């Protein structure tokens, strides 16, 4: 495709990139407001009332509880048993029987409901982007109870804020300290580490230091060495949590900190810095040119294409440097670049499973209730939410999401959704419209001749299911 995008295509393209896909109402809204004003609004989510989503989330009790409360209320079966043995009147309390699985399930449901219903679509896209960038694995040990707060108190407050604040928040979050093991990393020379009986904190752990540079900031080719990994790990000794499953907050423990001098990326960090060593490293990394490039590349990959034009990455990186990592400024640079609305970018991205499922629910105007079935579908498509085990998170390139098994699951999802065979989601056939109007909504003037002719051979719900299973709807 080489003709410039039509106005109608631009609107759909915008909604596919800054949100989880078009709805009829949203298309109308952009048409009314104009693209520029719509973007302005999306970049200031606090100006957008979001009552519907609040209502939808009201039933998710765990979303409002602190980590401490979650640990108390949703113990593992063994812990629950211990507790009821000690305290028989607690027997039969409902939460005690549910276990931490419920906590993760509610977190997953909230993510999906927000993707479908929030008016602050760009904000939700960014929350999803950052939780994948700063990935944790919600099924790892104490993170079963810490992930709720990680999402609510670490990622979401900074999703459209400054990168440095977000970086610092993740570095000090109990969930990340636990996931990448930094809470246990200690100076090998610390007396407390060496002599305290049964002390697990006896020496350096490189896990966080490495991923901090490889995945969170500089990128794997960003110019650090194995020596830097060790030095950064030394800087972060003492950044810990008291008890992952107890009083879980972040604190600095000077007694396990390595007080000596460190050299990080050629910069000398003098001895005796204490907790400031870690802060200095974060400052260094947040302002490093490799970080500006790496974050910009990842954003451009999410918003433009798997291999975005270097020109747009450069513009974003420049905006990153100039604005000191102000995320809305970087996003604006991407959205305002001509590359963003270039014909090459149209339908260039393969939807990740959450994007696929949410966009289907949005386009069909499905009524979504709390549902495990929808989450199970996401799992089978390869993206169980908050459950990517490796620190890399989920890959954001199309070839990762088009395996035969994944395509099959998407086809089955499409027909199940239209047939109202997925508990928790309900499509009103009467308001769905016909295939043609649905096609205009998802890919205006962009259906292949094959899809068009297949469409004309079907009717009613069948044609909508077919469209949602077609290659065009796998892209955004």
């Amino acid at each position, binding site marked *: 495709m080489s003709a410039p995008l039509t106005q109608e295509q631009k609107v759909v393209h915008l909604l596919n990139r800054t949100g989880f896909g078009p709805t009829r109402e949203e298309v109308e809204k952009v048409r009314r407001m104009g693209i520029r004003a719509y973007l302005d609004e999306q970049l200031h989510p606090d100006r957008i009332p979001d009552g519907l989503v609040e209502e939808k989330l009201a039933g998710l009790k765990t979303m409002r509880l602190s980590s401490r409360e979650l640990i108390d209320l949703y113990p593992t079966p063994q812990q629950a048993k211990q507790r009821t043995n000690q305290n028989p009147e607690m027997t039969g309390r409902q939460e005690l029987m549910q276990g931490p699985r419920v906590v993760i399930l509610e977190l997953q449901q909230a993510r999906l409901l927000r993707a479908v219903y929030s008016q602050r679509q760009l904000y939700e896209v960014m929350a999803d982007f950052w939780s994948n960038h700063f990935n944790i694995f919600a099924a790892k040990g104490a993170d079963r109870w810490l992930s709720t707060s990680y999402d609510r108190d670490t990622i979401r407050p900074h999703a459209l804020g400054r990168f440095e604040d977000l970086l610092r928040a993740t570095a000090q979050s109990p969930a990340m300290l636990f996931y990448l093991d930094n809470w246990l990393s200690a100076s090998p020379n610390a007396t407390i580490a060496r002599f305290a009986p049964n002390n697990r904190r006896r020496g350096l752990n490189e896990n966080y230091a*490495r991923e901090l540079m490889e995945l969170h900031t500089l990128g794997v080719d960003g110019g650090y060495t194995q020596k830097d990994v060790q030095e950064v790990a030394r800087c972060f000794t003492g950044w810990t949590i008291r008890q992952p499953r107890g009083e879980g907050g972040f604190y600095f423990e000077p007694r396990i900190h390595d007080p000596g001098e460190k050299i990080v990326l050629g910069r000398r960090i003098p001895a005796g810095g204490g907790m400031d060593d870690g802060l200095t490293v974060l400052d260094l990394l947040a302002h490093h040119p490799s970080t500006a490039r790496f974050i910009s590349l990842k954003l451009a990959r999410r918003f433009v294409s798997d291999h975005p034009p270097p020109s747009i990455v450069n513009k974003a990186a420049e905006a990153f440097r100039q604005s000191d990592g102000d995320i809305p400024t970087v996003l604006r640079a991407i959205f305002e670049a001509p590359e963003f609305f270039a014909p090459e970018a149209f339908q260039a991205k393969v939807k990740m499973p959450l994007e696929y499922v949410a966009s289907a629910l949005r386009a069909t105007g499905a009524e979504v209730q709390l549902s495990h079935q929808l989450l199970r579908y996401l799992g089978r498509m390869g993206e169980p939410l908050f459950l990517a085990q490796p620190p890399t998170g989920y890959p954001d390139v199309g070839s990762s999401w088009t395996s035969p098994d994944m395509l099959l699951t998407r086809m089955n999802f499409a*027909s199940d959704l239209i047939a109202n065979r997925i508990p928790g989601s309900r499509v009103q056939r009467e308001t769905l419209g016909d295939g043609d109007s649905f096609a205009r909504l998802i890919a205006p003037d962009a259906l292949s001749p094959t899809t068009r002719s297949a469409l004309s051979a079907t009717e009613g719900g069948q044609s909508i299911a077919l469209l949602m299973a077609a290659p065009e709807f796998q892209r955004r």
Partner: protein
Amino acid sequence: MNFARRRFLKSTGLGFLALGLPPSFLVRAAEAQQIGRGKALVVVFQRGAMDGLNAVIPFKDRDYYSFRPSIAIAEPASPENRVIDLDGFYGLHPALAPLKSIYDKGQLAIVHAAGSPDNTRSHFDAQDYMEIGTPGIKSTPDGWLNRYLNEKKKDESPFRGVAVTAQLPRMLAGSAPALTLSSIEEFRLRNESMAGALQKLYANTTDSLFRLGGQNLFAAMNELKQVQAKIPASSEGYPNGRFGAGLTQIARLIKADVGLEIAFTEIEGWDTHVNQGGATGQMANRLKELADGLAAFYRDLGDRMSDVVLVTMSEFGRTARENGNRGTDHGHANVMFALGGPVRGGKVYGRWPGLAPEVLYEGRDLNLTTDFRAVCGEVIARHLGQKDLNKIFPGFRAQAPLGLIA
């Protein structure tokens, strides 16, 4: 009509005969071809970097015990929780006990100090290098298993290359058709009436990514309907979880003779930075799942193991010294297993580089003496019969053959 016959008719352009009764000479010719029953390679990827030094323990290396005060596995002479002696120098972790009898039968070989020569300690990069088969070169577009499928063109069974994972692994990705299939039973459209239209849609799309995926999907679904009756039920004895479930599917496909040549599966959870455990604990649990799975697979396939070689690998090993949290950090060389009838097992291959501080890789990790491509290349050449490895592992030449395959 059975699979081999239909393949034959299709490949000889006599497919129209399928409408009526084919002459008996064609049937005999097709059956003589034995397309379905062929040799297979199964790759198991241990994602997260297994600690090879605690899987196959060099218990006679003095430095091993001094480096690992809290996680070392006790010598074979110890009263309990001890290494299972293999040859007086190396021994198996006790959780790998189910593999011992296979080793003793000579159908399990071990290659120590093996892996990828690149010095990266990034999980992502190291896995990528191992999957594309060109350590240090990121631009390689396809995986080495896919290059094998391309190189050795033969019968076009849609089951020739199968990963029992949701995502198609890089190792199997490329221009040759490859399938992902997580469950044979659920590998079907829930609304059959859409099948025709969807198949056409995907066959004719100009979107090459989806054309390829769709073609592989429909070819396999259609084939699966034909061969359904031949596919045996799942066997008992596999461990619970995705790894065991994946191996079950692979074994069923091999037994069904549907043309499976390359299979891929994975087992996660090896990134033991903290509380790795020794004879019991975190890593022991992973090893038990691995060994239980492999032993179940071996038992399940029985005589068919004479056609199968299974190879394990992990992106890198872990530090020779334990870290401050009774765990290990990212290291270098590792250990690989090769299992199957054609394997000359009962032996630990590879030169042992030693653990003395001055011979450690970058002063901290087990040095590498066998490139994983030497192991895999030998299996491809000697087991699958693809002698020319230039396209599969470009730029790599093994120094001397290991003699791993009979």
